[in-house]
């Protein structure tokens, strides 16, 4: 039995190392900004004061955290059996598209029913989109990594096609967007902020994911496949079916994120639906090693960075994409550490 004191020291050590890694990542990004003649201290002050310094800022960070958690789960669920779903972005767009169809065509339904239908459509849209990649993989035709990546572009173009063409709001002058959703198609907000019911979706999905993994036959079979696919196959576990089902569930969660975004954040379908939530979600899942609690923590960190990017664009006239550097550096640091430790 290990001595409690030893454990505490080990934990302090780990915490210290974690702090050092975060400091390293922040330092590298600061150096990059300095090289390009920007003031990193002001940039950090802006990022942190705008996201953590006020109730409003904090609630906006939570709003960003919702799609990040769901798209992270979209990558984490298939990753249990080493499937690499990099298509969260496209699945989010297709989910948003399907939910939008429901919002525009079924607006006569009572609100709770309409929202439920939109959520189901969003889930199914994203899920079936990812399911294509799952089937291609299960048949051994195309690696899901490359197919999900390519399908991202197709999904985004599909949304563009619709909002510039058949679905364009006739009263929207020339903006590429659909008509505004009816009030019944908007997810309820929580406590007078812009944080919406999607947060509950994301948290419930995370808890269910954790529960299924730890406590069900399903989770056990997944661990068997993840541990040794060949042995699992010989024990009669239908691997092909799991491949497709996990891709559908993962894609469905990303689609749900898309539904929540169009419904609660945008109120209509626009091509600027996501600043790359799907890709960030994939990185979150990796940073967390697919662990449910880790996903919540990493999603929060990336939500701060993403929300910070919006602020830098306004206060420092930096391109919004600049925060991608910070995100990448954080990930490099985390990835380098994972392997070196193991």
């Amino acid at each position, binding site marked *: 039995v290990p001595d409690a004191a030893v454990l505490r020291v080990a934990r302090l050590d780990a915490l210290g190392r974690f702090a050092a890694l975060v400091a390293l990542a922040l330092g590298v990004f600061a150096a*990059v900004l300095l090289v*390009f003649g920007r003031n990193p201290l002001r940039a950090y002050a802006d990022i942190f004061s705008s996201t953590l310094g006020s109730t409003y800022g904090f609630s906006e960070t939570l709003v960003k955290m919702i799609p990040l958690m769901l798209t992270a789960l979209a990558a984490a669920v298939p990753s249990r059996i080493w499937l*690499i779903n*990099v298509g969260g972005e496209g699945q989010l767009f297709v989910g948003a598209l399907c939910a939008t169809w429901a919002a525009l065509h079924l607006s006569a339904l009572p609100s709770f029913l309409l929202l439920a239908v939109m959520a189901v459509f969003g889930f199914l849209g994203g899920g079936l989109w990812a399911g294509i990649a799952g089937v*291609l993989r299960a*048949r*051994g*035709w*195309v*690696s899901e*990594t*490359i*197919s999900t*990546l*390519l*399908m991202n*572009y*197709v999904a985004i*173009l*599909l949304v*563009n*096609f619709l909002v*510039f*063409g058949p679905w364009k709001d006739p009263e929207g002058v020339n903006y590429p967007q659909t008509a505004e959703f009816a009030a019944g198609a908007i997810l309820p907000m929580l406590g007078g902020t812009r944080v919406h019911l999607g947060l509950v979706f994301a948290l419930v999905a995370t808890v269910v994911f954790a529960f299924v993994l730890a406590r069900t036959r399903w989770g056990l079979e997944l661990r068997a496949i993840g541990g040794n696919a060949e042995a699992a196959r010989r024990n009669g576990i239908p691997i092909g079916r799991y491949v497709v089902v996990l891709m559908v569930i993962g894609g469905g969660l990303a689609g749900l994120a898309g539904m929540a975004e169009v419904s609660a954040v945008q109120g209509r379908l626009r091509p600027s639906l996501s600043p790359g939530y799907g*890709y960030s979600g*994939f*990185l979150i899942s*990796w940073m967390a090693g697919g662990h449910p609690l880790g996903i919540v923590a990493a999603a929060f960190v990336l939500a701060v960075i993403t929300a910070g990017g919006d602020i830098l664009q306004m206060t420092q006239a*930096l*391109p*919004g*994409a*600049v*925060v*991608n*550097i*910070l*995100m*990448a*550096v954080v*990930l*490099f640091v985390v*990835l*380098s550490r*994972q*392997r*070196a430790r193991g």
Partner: protein
Amino acid sequence: MAAVLRSLLSGSVVSGTPLLYATLAELLSERAGVVNLGLEGVMLVGAVVGFIATVHTGSATAGLVAAALAGGLFNVLFAYVVVTRRANQLAAGLALMFCGVGLSALMGARYVGSQIAGLPEFRVPILADIPIVGPALFAHDALVYAAVPVAALTWWVLFRTRWGLSVRAVGENPVAAFAAGRNPWAVQYQALFLAGVLGGIAGAHLSLAVARTWVEWMTAGRGFIAVALVIFSKWHPLRAIAGALLFGGAISLQLQMQALGVPISPFLLDMLPYLLSLAVLAVWGGRARQAAPGSLGRVFQGTQ
């Protein structure tokens, strides 16, 4: 009709060129056993550095050299993470892509909208006067002419030199290569630097010869298409030429149809290259997999 055919052919060659350089970059790196999903970022860094250097020196050649070096160095960062630190290649590759997107946006912010003369066009005497084929194939910039020779050179280096043998040995089985006295880490660093140089050139062709301007994220997924093209070409540099031309053709066809005012939404036409990639992989992918380097994507842990 002749004019359309000429633009289509010429467009295929021009659009296929950056794809070919990018495909060769990915191919070289995968032959050494490293999947690089960050090629998109490498291309962007090459595109922006090449553009900035051209604006300041007034010479597109200087821009091209700068782009190649920048691409190579940027890819060495990736090599450090995946070779020395042994990080997961797919995740690190995506992180590299993000890094490239952000870095190029930061560097290029002041140059959005600037115009340059770009790489000069050389008309090959006599040949360029052949109807249709002449102007389509023999009135381009130097990078277009160099593309096929570079592919041949890549083949020669990989299959006819000692170093190429090392690269392939490390990609197949790093432990055996190590036992045979090669240093897998050094070989992978070298291969990734060269791959970065090719990726930088691919990006530079977009900003210096095709667009002649800098636009954020101007590669628009070409780095990912290149990854698909490597599978299509079964990890063979000469087959990559055909693949790049086919995909260049898809991009060119879409541009031509838009120019002709074909009543199909440009967004649907834009899907062509991606759908074509998927279709090609679905048909060829399963069989091509056997041609993949043996330890592609795995991390060499050393021998203990």
